[in-house]
């Protein structure tokens, strides 16, 4: 339905996206994952016809949209990362403004606005000035504006950044419902792995402008099928323990946090007794050792050597 073909985008000497290939089929929720600066926003700008690739193509229904983006724009809703609203207007005035841009007016516009306000849970705040909204309410209205003209495809660029868990859940549930009830196609970018795991059928992972993995959740987790992730918890760490872990030849990757160390090891290796021994030698009291099935976060750590939110 919508695809990027060998698309590269360069800004002066910096290549923000390098020969990216990705596609979205009708009715799918596709996740685009990557840390800050991975090239996600550039990729979706190209995909939404806001930015022309330096080389490569963007296609909608097998036709290039580089010369004529109108057919795509007609069915596309965009939720930018920023709050793209007039803060001095009320919720209803914002919706009226963006509705008029889509040539909607009169009762049709009013009816659509009522539906959208209900959907995003802002009916009671319709006449409130956006400036006085909480972060979560602004985010919801930001999404509502993109849904006003009944788009078939919606591109959401990190729509849950900086909001409370309650609003975040509301947004995720809304996106899921839009997909299930209206068969809306969704491209969802985030650096919250759990959001993507919850929502998406297929996932693309980007880092430093490159696509480093793609597939269904299961396919991506298969990347780590030969490995286990072990989570070690303690109240504090000491240098001797960390040094002995780092020097262990069987450990593939290591991530040290304040009270947790995550290591990736081959599945056949039994690290339990070895870790207990290391802790004893270092004079460290461990609270727990958990052996986990790989998560997308683990895959990301495996592929890039760093955490998603680094």
């Amino acid at each position, binding site marked *: 339905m919508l695809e990027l073909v060998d698309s590269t985008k360069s800004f002066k000497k910096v290549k923000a996206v390098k020969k990216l290939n990705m596609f979205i089929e009708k009715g799918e929720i596709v996740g685009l994952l990557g840390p800050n600066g991975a090239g996600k926003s550039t990729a979706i700008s190209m995909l939404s016809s806001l930015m022309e690739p330096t080389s490569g193509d963007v296609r909608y229904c097998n036709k290039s949209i580089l010369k004529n983006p109108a057919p795509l*724009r007609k069915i596309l809703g965009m939720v930018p990362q920023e709050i793209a609203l*007039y803060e001095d207007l009320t919720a209803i*005035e914002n919706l009226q*403004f963006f509705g008029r*841009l889509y040539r909607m007016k009169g009762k049709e516009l009013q009816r659509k606005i009522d539906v959208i306000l209900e959907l995003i849970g802002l009916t009671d705040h319709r006449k409130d000035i956006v400036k006085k909204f909480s972060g979560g309410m602004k985010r919801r209205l930001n999404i509502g*504006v993109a849904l006003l003209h009944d788009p078939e495809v919606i591109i959401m660029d990190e729509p849950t950044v900086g909001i409370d868990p309650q609003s975040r859940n509301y947004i995720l549930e809304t996106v899921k419902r839009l997909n299930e009830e209206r068969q809306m196609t969704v491209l969802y970018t985030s650096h919250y792995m759990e959001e993507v795991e919850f929502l998406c059928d297929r996932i693309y992972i980007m880092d430093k402008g490159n696509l480093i993995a793609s597939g269904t959740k299961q396919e991506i987790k298969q990347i780590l099928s030969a490995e286990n992730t072990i989570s070690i918890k303690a109240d504090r760490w000491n240098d001797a323990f960390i040094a002995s872990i780092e020097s262990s030849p069987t450990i593939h990757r290591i991530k040290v946090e304040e009270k947790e160390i995550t290591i990736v090891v081959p599945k056949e290796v039994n690290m339990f007794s070895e870790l207990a021994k290391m802790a004893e030698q270092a004079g460290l009291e461990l609270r727990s050792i958990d052996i986990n099935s790989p998560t997308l976060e683990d895959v990301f750590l495996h592929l890039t050597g760093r955490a998603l939110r680094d």
Partner: protein
Amino acid sequence: MNGILVAKFTTFIRKPWMFLLFTTMSIIFALILGTSGGMTSISVPVYGSSNIQESFIGKSLEKNDVYTFNWMTEKEMLDLIADGKSEVGVIVKEDDFQLVVGVESTNAQMVEQTIHDIYAKKLQQEKLFEEVEAQTDSEKQLLDEEYKTAMDSPVFTMKTSNFSSSEAFVYDNETHFLFGFTLFFVIYTIAYNVLPILLEKKEGIWDRMILSPVRKTEMYIANLVYSFFEGYLQVLIIFLVFHFWIGVDFQGRFLEAVLLLIPYVFAVVSLSIFITACVKNAQQFNAVLPIVAVSMAMIGGAYWPIEIVESEVLLALSKINPLTYGMEALNGMVVYGYPLEEVLLPISILVLMGVVLMGLGIHLMERRHV
């Protein structure tokens, strides 16, 4: 396009503070500086007996608009001229006068001409009254009344005008500061109305509009029409306040002066687009705008008459400054009383600047994907 305009006007009604601030500042500055004296007339030291000071000659000198004749002793007058503090001094007597010239200048000649005219008028009056005295009392009274009537409403008037003659209106403090501060502060009002284009681009509102069926030209036109409207409304309010409330004399050409502001406001809208296209963010814009606006006011003659600027560099820079042409057109029409054809040149330059800067600004904005 209508949707964008509705949103802009709604925002304006809800948040008119910046507009009101710049309008008020413009009025206050023009009022304070315009009514504080300044370069209203040239001071000329004059010596004469106390009888002369009370006579027709003395009173006529005091009434003069262009020169301020300051009475003093002969020694004081000569000292001022010897010290170079005055170009010319005058010793007035009952039937003639003596000019003491320190520096040969146009002013010396004009002072001589002014005093000569006063003496000629005195002679004319004396001659008439001599004739009146030859008649009976009733005829004398009748002639006296007729003389006064004739003086109040002459059959025809002759207006002589040359550079700083007694009838010419070369520099008016009040109108100068009114024009200067109006044209200066409106730069801020307009620029801060164009800035939202940059902010909306950064915040993604512009992207949303691009993805909608609205054409880009409509987006630009709506923003520019609104900026023009607000800028023009400001200058209109200021001129209306000064004309109808403060009572500033636009020499009967108020409507023409107000219309003359259209090309200036258009040029400033275009300049603002150009500045917005050149900066990367609002912080840069906030840093650049005062530098540009104050420089424009300084070299464009908003703070002081451009005629007193002698630097060739500054004069050359003033030629690419819309404010220079705005002041030139307004002064030409209101202060010098030129007909419309005489101010067509500055108007044309303002329109040309507007078109060029608008083209460059929009092109830069699109190319840089600001």
